């Protein structure tokens, strides 16, 4: 903070205060500053409340100015100046002398999502984390990530994060908090801590668990509650039904020849999804058709897993239990209540049963976290009956530190608060006021608590109702640990000192046990030492190795014998689907439970299937919309269990009839500049008795419309027209395994194209260097998860444009996922196709640029020269693939300091009026070239990974040197599945695709 201006403020205030009758003689500015007049002057002059600032439509710049003034004020009122506590926060993996400006370093850490860790490597430029990659050695990652991990770096730099300790709306200090806390704690000594409650999300961190245990030991009456809105309670209870205890289930998807998913989106959501996607894709290699797995899916809300299915059945969520029972019965599980269904369903079910039986021991049955416990128990029993346990499915102790039924946990907490038993509530990293089911009335109960403390990244809805708000450190700013889906102990290592002096959960819990000054680093380290994770090794060596690696190798929880046995009694009789229209609550695919609502990358990321951005919607099938007489963006009132909310309609082909899906995570009241008031709040109609789905929904059209925007088919939803049109062009090429075996060139024969060699004109480009780059995208493997899009955005400093600009069709993503449907509106097949720049050899864009701002490199890239571009947009018009993106306004934020820190310094930040597009991550190519030159060698195959390729959980993208016949990309391009889009235009694209080969069951296909 600028000291001069700070003094200036204080002096001006002092003068003013003196005029208004402050003590005539004053010793110091500090004494004067304590007077009431001065305080009120300060308040008038410099609004402290974020609230007040937010209420006015001020610019971001002004907002930051005011925030800056608030910090100055905090300094001026509390203590004259605070010295940044000096601490060594990064144990250098490489010694400091190896820090070369311009050369990034990578540190292992973990990204924790709903308590579960995924191993990551974080790229750090001069101490600033800029990009998250997967940790190639970590079993949950193997080098890939999901969208949330990729976007986490933006959350860390979010200028809207809470930046100061706030007490009842006023900025104060952490010391003041400790004083009040200690007073409250000392009052609890007598009651054995009976009034203390701590609320966290799911905890897998052993050291945090250890601290909480210490707290509970010191105050035996205290209670610790866990609650995540997207809860895994059904899985926990299902496990209890089947095994009598809560265990964690782990699948070896790559070992399964046949997979049946009962409404489970295991490829993109839930713990282990990144690994599962990779293992699944490993068995979807079109070039190895004999080794292909087969996926059956029965699902309610269409998901990406369903889009990958060879056979898909869409049913209401409540109907799936019945189907699960009949399949289980077919597999020899003694269970009743199976649903016969119509003829087609019966045929489907018996085909699945036969196929599973034929692959007993090498098949897999999975379900989704929102399906009731009985379905989970049935799935365990089915896997047992099929002999999959120990082969494709293994069980272990729960990866959670203290698994509980979280819905019960939060209900107990609310009841305790309501009855006035709670004197001190500490909420750590959760936002229960927003995200608890509406029937619990958390906010009302909260009112009875004498001291309410909220620690979080944002001053959110819960912070607003708490006496104290403590800014928390982001995962990239703090030490911690967590377990991944298989229990692997993973270290969370900070990459930077907390930007806003936030504290980690460890430090906040430590304060409750009287260790307020203890650092997170010491807490984690000491816990590990005490637990003896190092075994017989020297602890220091072990610690250094583990921090370097990011996890303890082989620390996955040991598998445990578990047998489902006879579950007939446990699952009881089938209740059948609830009557009336069904409402399904799902976590949003991009902002999840609302946690990421203020992350611009995630908000603008087109949601899979709907391609909606910045909003949620009431998703329904075409038939239901037809019956209601509504179209996309028409607002309907959803009345569910006496609560109502208005939501815009979005028609999703393949959505089961008489069912509506709403995504959680929107309608935030205090999320930040981006997330506040986006979408509608589905929590407002959620109930703790049926948090996942239930019947009895009333849908009433209101006659109003609310504009929501999709990045595909901006204004048209004519599926038939679109579908046939895309087939006419054969942009997506799909065949099935039998046809492919009969005619290996079936994919390439789908489109007549001229022979590029028979050209009147000589080839313009010689490509006589050692390298010519190319890319192959395998449509068999791509599941449309969007991770490439976000990875590219992070790597290439791609701007967020906002809802209005998405409405204008000006989104900037360099790699987009096109979605195509085929077949029936009510049950279509869905295909995804990632589209980056094709880097054409005969590039239409290069020809028409009047200033030579897009030119061909000797290595086959269409290079964009940003500073030469004047912005005629002719190149974009002439691009048949429409992959070019134009800065219609100054989209890049050149002003917000924290966002500047987060950018990749190797990539130009584009200004207004300039065209941009995918460069095949030319900055990475250049780094590799320099390294290779230094060592006087050629660039090795696989040495360069583009950002999209690196992040892809399915490993669908291959990049490399097409001049090297042995490179992986060359081998794939030689595959009979290889095809280019629109090659009849003779553009000679360097990005090509591998056609998709389905593996249908011949019985069902007939």
């Amino acid at each position, binding site marked *: 903070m600028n000291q001069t201006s700070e003094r200036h403020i204080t002096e001006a205030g002092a003068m003013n205060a003196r005029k208004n009758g402050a003590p005539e003689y004053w010793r110091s500015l500090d004494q004067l500053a304590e007077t009431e007049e001065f305080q009120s002057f300060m308040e008038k002059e410099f609004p402290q409340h974020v609230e007040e600032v937010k209420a006015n439509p001020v610019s971001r710049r002004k907002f930051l100015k005011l925030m800056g003034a608030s910090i100055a004020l905090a300094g001026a009122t509390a203590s004259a100046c605070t010295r940044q506590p000096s601490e060594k926060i990064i144990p250098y993996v490489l010694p400091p002398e190896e820090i070369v400006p311009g050369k990034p370093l990578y540190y292992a850490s973990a990204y924790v999502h709903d308590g579960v860790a995924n191993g990551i490597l974080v790229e750090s430029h001069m101490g600033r984390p800029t990009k998250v990659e997967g940790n190639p050695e970590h079993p949950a990652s193997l080098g890939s990530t999901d969208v949330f991990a990729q976007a986490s770096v933006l959350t860390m730099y979010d200028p809207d994060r809470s930046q100061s300790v706030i007490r009842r709306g006023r900025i104060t200090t952490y010391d003041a908090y400790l004083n009040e806390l200690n007073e409250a704690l000392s009052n609890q000594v007598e009651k054995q801590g009976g009034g203390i409650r701590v609320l966290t999300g799911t905890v897998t961190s052993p050291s945090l668990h250890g601290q909480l245990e210490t707290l509970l030991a010191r105050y035996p009456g205290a209670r610790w509650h866990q609650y995540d809105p997207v809860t895994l309670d059904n899985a926990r209870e299902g496990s209890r039904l089947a095994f009598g205890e809560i265990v964690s289930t782990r699948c070896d998807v790559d070992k399964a020849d046949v997979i049946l998913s009962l409404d489970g989106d295991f490829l993109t959501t839930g713990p282990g999804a990144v690994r599962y996607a990779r293992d699944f894709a490993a068995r979807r290699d079109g070039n190895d058709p004999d080794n292909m797995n087969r996926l059956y899916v029965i699902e309610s809300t269409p998901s990406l897993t369903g889009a990958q299915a060879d056979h898909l059945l869409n049913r209401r969520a409540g109907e799936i239990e019945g189907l699960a029972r009949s399949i289980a019965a077919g597999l020899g599980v003694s269970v009743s209540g199976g649903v016969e269904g119509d003829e087609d369903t019966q045929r489907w079910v018996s085909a699945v049963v036969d196929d599973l039986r034929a692959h007993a021991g090498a098949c897999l049955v999975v379900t989704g976290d929102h399906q009731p416990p009985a379905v989970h128990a049935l799935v365990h029993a089915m896997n047992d009956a099929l002999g999959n346990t120990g082969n494709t499915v293994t069980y272990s102790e729960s990866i959670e530190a203290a698994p509980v039924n979280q819905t019960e946990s939060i209900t107990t907490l609310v009841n305790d608060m309501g009855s006035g038993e709670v004197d001190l509530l500490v909420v750590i990293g959760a936002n229960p006021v927003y995200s608890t089911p509406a029937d619990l009335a958390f906010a009302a109960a909260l009112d009875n608590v004498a001291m309410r403390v909220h620690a979080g990244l944002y001053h959110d809805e819960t912070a607003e109702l708490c006496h104290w708000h403590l800014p928390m450190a982001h995962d990239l700013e703090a030490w911690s640990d967590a377990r991944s889906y298989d229990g692997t102990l993973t270290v969370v290592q900070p990459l930077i000192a907390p930007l806003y002096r936030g504290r980690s959960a460890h430090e906040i819990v430590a304060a409750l046990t009287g260790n307020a000054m203890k650092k997170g680093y010491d807490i984690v380290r000491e816990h590990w030492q005490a637990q003896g994770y190092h075994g017989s090794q020297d602890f220091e060596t072990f610690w250094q190795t583990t921090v370097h690696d990011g996890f303890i190798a082989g620390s996955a929880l040991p598998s445990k014998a578990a047998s489902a046995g006879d579950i007939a009694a446990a699952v009881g009789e089938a209740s059948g689907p609830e009557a009336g229209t069904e409402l399904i609550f799902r976590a949003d695919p991009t902002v999840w439970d609302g946690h990421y609502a203020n992350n611009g990358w995630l908000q603008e990321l087109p949601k899979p299937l709907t391609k909606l951005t910045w909003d949620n919607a009431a998703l329904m099938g075409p038939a239901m919309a037809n019956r209601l007489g509504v179209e996309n963006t028409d607002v309907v009132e959803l009345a569910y269990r006496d609560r109502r909310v208005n939501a815009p309609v979005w028609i999703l082909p393949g959505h089961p009839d008489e069912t509506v899906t709403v995504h959680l995570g929107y309608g935030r009241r205090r999320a930040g500049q981006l997330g506040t008031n986006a979408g509608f709040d589905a929590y407002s109609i959620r109930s703790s008795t049926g948090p996942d789905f239930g019947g009895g929904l009333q849908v009433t059209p209101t006659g109003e419309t609310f504009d929501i925007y999709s990045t595909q088919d901006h*204004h048209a939803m004519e599926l038939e027209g679109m579908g046939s049109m895309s087939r006419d062009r054969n942009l997506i090429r799909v065949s099935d395994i039998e046809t492919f075996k009969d005619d290996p060139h079936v994919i390439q024969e789908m489109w007549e194209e001229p022979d590029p060699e028979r050209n009147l004109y000589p080839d313009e480009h010689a490509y006589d260097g050692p390298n010519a780059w190319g890319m192959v995208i395998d449509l068999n493997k791509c599941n449309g998860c969007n991770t490439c899009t976000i990875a590219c955005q992070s790597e290439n400093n791609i701007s967020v444009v906002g809802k209005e600009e998405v409405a204008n069709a000006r989104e900037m993503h360099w790699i987009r996922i096109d979605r195509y449907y085929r077949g029936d509106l009510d049950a279509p097949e869905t295909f995804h196709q990632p589209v980056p720049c094709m880097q054409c050899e005969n590039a239409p864009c290069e020809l028409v640029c009047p*200033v030579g701002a897009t030119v061909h490199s000797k290595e086959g890239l269409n290079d964009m020269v940003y500073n030469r571009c004047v912005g005629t947009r002719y190149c974009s018009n002439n691009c*048949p693939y429409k992959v070019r993106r134009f800065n219609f306004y100054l989209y890049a934020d050149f002003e917000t300091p924290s966002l500047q820190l987060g950018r990749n310094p190797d990539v130009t930040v584009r200004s207004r009026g300039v065209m941009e597009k995918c460069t095949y991550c030319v900055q990475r190519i250049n780094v590799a070239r320099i390294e290779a030159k230094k060592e006087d060698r050629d660039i090795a195959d696989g040495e360069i990974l583009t950002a999209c390729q690196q992040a892809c959980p399915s490993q669908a993208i291959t990049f490399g040197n097409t001049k090297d016949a042995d490179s992986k990309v060359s081998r794939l391009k030689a595959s009979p599945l290889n095809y280019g889009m629109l090659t009849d235009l003779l553009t000679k694209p360097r990005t090509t695709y591998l056609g998709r080969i389905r593996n249908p069951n011949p019985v069902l296909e007939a």
Partner: protein
Amino acid sequence: MSQQDQAVDIEKVDKYTGDGFVAPEYNNTTVTQKISNIVLRADTPWGWYLAVAVLLPVVGMLGISITWLVLIGTGVWGLNVPVGWGFAIINFVWWIGIGHAGTLISAILHLMRQDWRNSINRFAEAMTIFAVMCAVMFPLLHVGRPWLAYWLLPLPNTMSLWPQWRSPLVWDVFAVSTYFTVSLIFWYMGMIPDLGTLRDRAKHPVVARIYGIFAMGWRGASSHWARYEKAYLILAGLSTPLVLSVHSIVSLDFAVSLIPGWHTTVFPPYFVAGAIYAGFAMVLTLTIPVRHWFGLQGLITTRHLENMGKVTLATGFIVVYGYAMEAFISWYSASPYEGFMMWNRMTGQYAPVYWALIFCNAVSIQILWWKRARRSPLVLFIVSLIVGVGMWLERFVIVVTSLANDYMPSSWDYYAGTIWDWSLYIGTIGFFLFMMCLFIRFLPMIPMSEMKMIIPKHRNKKDA
């Protein structure tokens, strides 16, 4: 109307509907009096002030639109990906096209000794100059960084950066700048004898001085006339290929690309015909009211109007042929992209625009088969307005429908102009009309010297 030294029988001239190109009342003296009086009269008609008062705010709107655009960015327009070109390019092509009639009238008709064009050529040339001024604004402003638009010029620089010569946009720069230069010189040179006349007839010394400067010492000597005639002929010769080349090159902006609906060999002749079509319509739109307000029926006669009506009809048919060929070839090519493009134009999201265009450009002109319609200023005026709109719609259809639904169905989108698109477009119309107002008031809108060439010699005998 001031009557001071007017010897012409205004009543008769105003009602002249005869078959000649000049009313019989006119001779050398009266023509000079009639035309120079419009410029040199002391009392400006209130109607002129009214027009300027209406047009100035529109010019102001143009200024605001440009300022806002440069300040904020091209995003204020309705453009998106896939539709990277919108109103700006539509308006550019439209205005350039309008300019073409002027050059055609002054150059080609001159070479073909169509002397009847003498009374409308000055007016048409002025229209060309102003239309091209409006046109060049658009490509300059539509680029993302207008302050760097000069990079399209081959300016020697230390970084050895050069335009990319294969791009039709670079050809445009040369085509349009040549066109503007030649048109301006042609227009000005043709005006020199008349400026001399105005200098001589001006009463106010300052006015005389100003016209004198621009008359460049014209004395009417026969050596002057000899050189003038030669230079005029050379410029006419230079301009003639320009009439064909400029719009051909503009059409290559589209034809060179690979977008279905743009990638068409018929474009160069089709664009030239369209340009002349639109240009003649604009000449009619402007001359009909002006001859009415200033009593010029004796100089721009019904016969002129009828001739222009005929040209409009003829070029209209070439344009219709172009539409037919576009549709035919899109079917005959058997290209799925071309076939879809045409079908989409006729039945897709912009179908109303396409059918409005067909009505304006193909249907409405059929009335001109009737002589009575061709000789009726009112009918001609209405048809010319419809054609002007139609030609704008034609460019909209070409630019927008082709881009909005091209190769990738996933990227298809919808485009519509925003308020800033419209304000800039209307602003240029205001600017154009404003410039025409200035021209009418301060320069002779009908070439006195050339009129005298077509006045039968015997009429001047008694004066001699």
